[in-house]
């Protein structure tokens, strides 16, 4: 169609607003409430235009173009109206600075006065210089306001983590309300009251912490004024540099814009161009990056043990020392633990180093606990192909979604947003979880499952399916007969009692799952962490085949997939993570190279411990050498996110102190030990070598990677998918008189290397503390436990401490705790080793008792 804007003929296609078209053609129309990611609102009325044959002044942000439309954007009446409207807005906004004739010269005088509590003008406002309201005032050339200024005198809300809300500056554009509801699905804020008292607020004016806020910061990012401001940058002024990189705090891989001032990170925000996140992030990427990189726990100098004490040395000294020592412990007596949070390049080098220099196959990482690892194990056992070719974006197109074993609104926030899109488009979401999740309110069905009984749930659903299928007479998939046989042998007579799910619910679930063309099954640690985890995955596999669903394993760490792809073809002969820790205690292992998180090694019996990490941790106590590694922000490389997308991340700042990137440290060590294969000048040299050597990387073009093009690790699939017979064994947990509770472990996603994010950030701690021990309301009442009270949990092999967190929806008799390898030993579930590691992949559920702490 053709439209005319200000006399200019413009071709337009599709359903577009006048404002969108105008922006695209560089025709400037002032606007405040419109935001490209949000549905039109039509509230501020600055974007008004005149349209031939239309009454009044339609807002261009919410008027869709029609063929032949003649639009004027800048008539004198429009400009006058806009100025009048803006004056109305300014009459309720601190405006002295906006219309001050001295504002140009003001910058020179205002160095520190921003540190006052109340914003009475731009000069005191942290939004100064990046404010959309300022911009509009500038373009409409407002130099006076006819009305006296009204200060609303509302309390500034400062009690919540991460950002303040000063609604005295709010222009009621509603962007925060819309982003929170439309994009994040949280609906934590809304308009309240009406008329001149209308304002944005939470339900009953409760703190955000009690209003279902995710602290994603999306509202802060869309706010055009200084009403919502990140507390951390309140007094910092404008950045002097901006860089882009990839967030390393979960398996999504959001692209972040990092604001810098004098080589220090001011803040991090999601990038609109981010291929996966498209302008969204989560609390970690939005508010914690700075805390992680500039943590006071960073170690910035190499240390070696001299006379029983760790002492600072030069890199030369440290590297020589470590190289020398390591030479003595080659082979089976040595092990290396890597981190699934380092880059592909670094992980590749760690592997290469272990095999070429340490001559050991004992290399592992916490990848071992991941759903992907269990899935892979199951597939290998049954000769199946994983079929990991999916994109996160596919999820929004699903018609039915089944989520089991993960609270994705916390662990995979961006995947959650895709699920939300699907649900808003009419998809049905089924959630199986022991406690009610905040996302359950969007589910068509919530199955409150007793943890550990997933196998029965899935098998029973398969059975219901088969009964239906027999009537339908579908083409038969290979393996159906033996699968059917195995199901017939399974005793499911008391499945309702075992799982805690009613017959009606199970029937409804099977109907929802059956009645779909496009289903996605998302599964996490809750399904795989049991010692029979791979049987659970097998049951899910069969059900997915029946429902023709795509399986999405939900890994936690940012580079799990990289770890998987790099390690894919190496042997499984060496010790795994669990065995390494056990061998370290028994004395079988003499030397351990820790380049990844490990539990407190008090019981270890080692002759050499080398720690390569970015943060101080308790194991320094036993270390012979500590090599300070830089964080992701101080180097470059690639990560592979959960969907197999290979993304390049960039160096944002120079390494802090004397810290060095992991790839550099390993290369130096290897060279010192005489290896000529480690002459890398920068990570891209390593990438190029990986492309040559690692099979999964063989199709990658380095040039495309450099250009930031979309690159996916592609899985070859040759076989038709087939059913696998279910193996049954007695798989559920037993409590005892002495240990009357079962504790499920939530392998915590809130860590970076050996830094516990919730212990580092007060804000995150208020939202979710890794030291919380979840207790059901019933148990809390029975034992008279108070929220936040100190308690200890004891198993047959140890105890750890934490704080009571009462969870209403948790079933009686069940406790929950986060499992964080890097947590302080007193508070770490890993203190319960060996019972934590029952099997290589398993965290399982632990029979425990509660003890009161004084």
């Amino acid at each position, binding site marked *: 169609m053709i439209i005319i804007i200000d006399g200019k003929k413009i071709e337009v296609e599709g359903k577009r607003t006048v404002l969108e078209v105008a922006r695209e053609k560089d025709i400037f129309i002032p606007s405040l409430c419109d935001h490209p990611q949000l549905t*039109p*609102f*039509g*509230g*501020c*009325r*600055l974007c*008004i235009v005149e349209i031939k044959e239309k*009454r*009044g*002044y339609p807002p261009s942000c*919410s008027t869709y173009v029609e063929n032949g439309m003649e639009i004027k954007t800048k008539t004198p009446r429009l400009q006058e*109206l806009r100025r*009048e*409207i803006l004056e*109305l*807005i300014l*009459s*309720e906004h601190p405006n002295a600075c906006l219309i001050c004739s001295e504002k140009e010269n003001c910058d020179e005088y205002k160095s520190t006065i921003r540190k006052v509590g109340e914003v009475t003008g731009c000069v005191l406002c942290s939004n100064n210089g990046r404010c959309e309201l300022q911009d509009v005032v500038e373009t409409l050339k407002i130099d006076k306001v*006819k*009305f006296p200024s009204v200060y609303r005198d509302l309390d500034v809300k400062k009690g919540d983590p991460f950002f303040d809300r000063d609604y005295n500056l709010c*222009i*009621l554009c*509603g962007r925060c309300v819309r982003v929170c509801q439309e994009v994040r699905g949280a609906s934590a804020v*809304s*308009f*309240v*009251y*009406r*008329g*001149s*008292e*209308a304002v944005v607020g939470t339900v009953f004016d409760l703190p955000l912490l009690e209003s279902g806020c995710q602290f994603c910061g999306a509202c802060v990012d869309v706010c055009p004024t200084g009403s919502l401001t990140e507390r951390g940058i309140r007094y910092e002024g404008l950045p002097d540099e901006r860089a882009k990189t990839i967030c390393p705090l979960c398996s999504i891989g959001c692209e972040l814009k990092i604001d810098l001032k004098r080589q220090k990170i001011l803040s991090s925000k999601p990038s609109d161009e981010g291929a996966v996140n498209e302008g969204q992030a989560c609390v970690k990427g939005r508010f914690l990056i700075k805390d992680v990189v500039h943590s006071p726990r960073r170690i910035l100098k190499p240390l070696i043990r001299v006379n029983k004490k760790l002492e600072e040395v030069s890199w030369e000294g440290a590297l020589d020392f470590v190289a020398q020592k390591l030479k003595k412990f080659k082979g089976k007596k040595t092990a290396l633990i890597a981190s699934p949070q380092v880059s592909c390049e670094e992980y590749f080098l760690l592997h290469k180093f272990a095999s070429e220099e340490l001559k050991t196959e004992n290399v592992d990482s916490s990848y071992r606990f991941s759903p992907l690892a269990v899935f892979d194990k199951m597939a290998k056992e049954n000769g199946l192909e994983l079929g990991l070719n999916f994109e996160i974006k596919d999820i929004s197109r699903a018609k039915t979604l089944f989520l089991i074993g993960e609270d994705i609104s916390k662990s995979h926030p961006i995947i959650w947003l895709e699920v939300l899109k699907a649900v808003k488009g009419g998809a049905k979401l089924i959630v199986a979880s022991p406690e009610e999740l905040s996302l359950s309110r969007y589910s068509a069905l919530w199955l409150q499952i007793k943890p550990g009984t997933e196998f029965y749930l899935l098998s029973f659903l398969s059975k219901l399916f088969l009964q239906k299928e027999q009537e339908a007479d579908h083409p038969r998939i290979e393996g159906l007969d033996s699968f059917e046989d195995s199901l017939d042998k399974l005793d499911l007579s008391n499945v309702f009692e075992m799982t805690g799910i009613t017959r009606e619910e199970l029937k409804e679930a099977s109907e929802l799952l059956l009645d779909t063309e496009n289903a996605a099954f998302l599964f996490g640690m809750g399904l795989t962490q049991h010692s029979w985890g791979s049987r659970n995955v097998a049951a899910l596999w069969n059900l997915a085949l029946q429902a023709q669903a795509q399986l999405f394993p939900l890994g936690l760490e940012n580079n799990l997939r990289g770890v998987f792809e790099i390690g894919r073809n190496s042997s499984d002969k060496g010790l795994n993570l669990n065995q390494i820790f056990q061998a370290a205690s028994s004395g079988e292992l003499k030397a351990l190279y820790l380049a990844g998180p490990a539990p407190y090694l008090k019981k270890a019996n080692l002759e050499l411990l080398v720690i390569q990490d970015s943060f101080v941790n308790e194991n320094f106590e036993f270390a012979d050498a500590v090599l300070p590694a830089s964080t992701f922000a101080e180097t470059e490389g690639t990560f592979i996110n959960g969907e197999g997308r290979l993304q390049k991340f960039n160096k944002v700042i120079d390494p802090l102190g004397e810290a060095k990137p992991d790839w550099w440290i390993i290369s130096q060590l290897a060279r010192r030990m005489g290896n000529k294969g480690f002459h890398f000048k920068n990570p891209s040299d390593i990438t190029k070598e990986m492309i040559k050597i690692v099979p999964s990387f063989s199709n990658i073009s380095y040039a495309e990677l450099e250009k930031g093009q979309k690159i996916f690790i592609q899985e070859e699939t040759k076989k038709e998918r087939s059913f696998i017979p279910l193996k049954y064994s007695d798989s559920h947990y037993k409590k005892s008189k002495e240990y009357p509770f079962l504790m499920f472990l939530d392998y915590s996603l809130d860590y970076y290397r050996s830094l516990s994010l919730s212990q580092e950030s007060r804000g995150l701690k208020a939202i979710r503390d890794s030291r919380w021990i979840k207790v059901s309301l019933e148990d809390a009442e029975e034992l008279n436990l108070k929220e936040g009270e100190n308690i200890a949990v004891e198993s047959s092999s140890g105890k750890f401490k934490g704080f009571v967190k009462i969870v209403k929806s948790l079933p009686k008799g069940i406790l929950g705790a986060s499992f964080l390898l890097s947590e302080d030993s007193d508070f770490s579930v890993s203190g319960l080793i060996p019972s934590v590691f029952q099997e290589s992949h398993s965290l399982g559920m632990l029979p425990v008792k509660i003890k009161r702490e004084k």
Partner: protein
Amino acid sequence: MKEKVLTEHFGLENLYKIDVYKKQGGYQATEKALKKMKPEEILEEVKKANLRGRGGAGFPAGVKWSFVPDTDKPKYLCVNADEGEPGTFKDRYIMSHNPHMLLEGIIITSFCVGIHAAFIYIRGEYEAIALRLEQAISEAYENGFLGKNILESGFDLDIFVHRGAGAYICGEETALLESLEGKRGVPRLKPPFPASVGLWQCPTVINNVETISNISHIILNGAEWFVKQGLPKDGGTRIFGVSGMVKNPGIYELPLGTSLKDIIFKHAGGMKEGKKLKAVIPGGMSAPILTADEINIKMDFDSLVEANSMLGSAAIIVIDEKTSILDVLKVVTKFYSHESCGQCTPCRIGNSWINKIVKRIAEGKGKKEDIDSILRLASNIEGNTLCPLGDAAAMPILSITKKFRKELESHV
């Protein structure tokens, strides 16, 4: 004077009971519509009747219904019983005296449009009336006029009564929908219009109580008869609610096109003893004011538009010479600045400033420029807001200020 249509039996005791109502021929229209007529025929009849909406805007009901698309989605009817327009009190008479007439209208409308769930959104203050409606509805269920397979026609319908919480804006049709959905009652952007995207995103018909109450009469007596009760382009009667300084305030059902002068001086008994007419608000508070010289006017949609006012809810507020126009303005501006939902700038802040200025004048602290400020602010609201409340506020403010400028100036 022609016969009354809606209020004919209002004098009858217990008319609200189904037996009494049926004795007066009640539910015959329903029988006729469901048993003898096709939905298309009903629609044709309502269109021909030129029944224009009684809620304010006067949109032809039949045309509105015909906008409902043919989809697989459920469709809904919402009866607007919010009756929030100051001066308006006709719907409550209908609902309390003759609830079954409304129910009949709902049944026939729903049958015509293919609706199986209807809602009556009633203002929160009408608690007793809501109760009466509930009773009438249960009587209708008992008598087989509601529920499954009504009168063996195969047609199902349920009616729900939903009470509002006291915001004027919830009478605006899209705010009403939001409120009904359990959200904060604020207007939605239009288009899309409720007929295509309404309650829970489904096609929805929204009509005023009085509009729907006319339906059974159109069905029983035919469109031709209905048009004769009023004007060719504006069929039927209107229930005029007269309030203010007249001898006999109350409701008067009269043909559309009756002159305003007659309504005030004949039907409502003229001005109260010793009072002289100063001005009239002819269609609820949102309607531009008419001066005493302007009352020689026919009360129908088109004639009032010609006179730069509007028929609105046909609530006639009669103002006498002794009433200060500043007091009138004060009431008007206070109301709108309080009832603005706050979504758009001109309405929220504009009305708030107008209100402040008027208050200031009333306190004797007004300035000369204030009158022009009011005019400027109000004209900036007009045509520049998200929902019609902006206009509804600007129109009376502008007309009062312009027509009574001299008097207002005497206060500053």
